[in-house]
């Protein structure tokens, strides 16, 4: 069965610094998607970034980038130039590409931004 593990329940970073959130996953499939979602306090869950497993190039969205290591089954999120608005719960998620199936989430990492 597929699993997603986030080993850091909480992290803190100084404003304007860079922080990396870790995620590992376990699957026997070769075609899948990986996602990072952000859930600000009392607000809706939104997508931060998405990676297709067949793409070797790491996805980037403005200040957010990933380090996707398929062989190691690792998918970390790097946030550059951290801003106060980045404070949130971050969830790593996995979804099989070729079948209607569930999306599996990690337990989340709460990120604090220190002014």
């Amino acid at each position, binding site marked *: 069965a597929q699993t997603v593990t*986030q080993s850091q*329940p909480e992290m803190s970073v100084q404003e304007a610094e860079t922080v990396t959130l870790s995620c590992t996953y376990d699957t026997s499939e070769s075609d899948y*998607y990986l*996602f990072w*979602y952000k859930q600000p306090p009392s*607000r*809706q*869950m*939104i*997508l931060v970034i*998405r990676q*297709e497993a067949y793409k070797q190039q790491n996805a980037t969205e403005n200040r957010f980038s990933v380090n996707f290591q398929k062989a190691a089954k690792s998918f970390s999120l790097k946030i550059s130039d951290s801003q106060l608005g980045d404070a949130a719960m971050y*969830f790593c*998620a996995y*979804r099989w*590409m*070729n*079948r*209607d*199936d*569930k*999306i*599996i*989430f*990690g*337990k*989340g990492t709460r990120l604090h931004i220190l002014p």
Partner: protein
Amino acid sequence: DVKVTQSSRYLVKRTGEKVFLECVQDMDHENMFWYRQDPGLGLRLIYFSYDVKMKEKGDIPEGYSVSREKKERFSLILESASTNQTSMYLCASSLGAGMNTEAFFGQGTRLTVV
């Protein structure tokens, strides 16, 4: 923009009551999901549906049932609410298999069972 709307933001129910949580999406998505979110446990899937009248159990289906009579609407039913079902419930929707897309979430329903 995709919109996923949950019928209530906050709900307080009594033990033993039958509770309905409604979710509607406006983007013709095939897949719809109900998750439960608890501190330290992340998001756990209760049920998901990949088509009208189709449903599959997730990781924690006990005490819950679902209904999908129309493509845009996915209801979660607590047959007899219990205090251990006090939680945040999140509905999500997405396009079907093979489509390069993420899940879009509703704003959540915080349910308290007293």
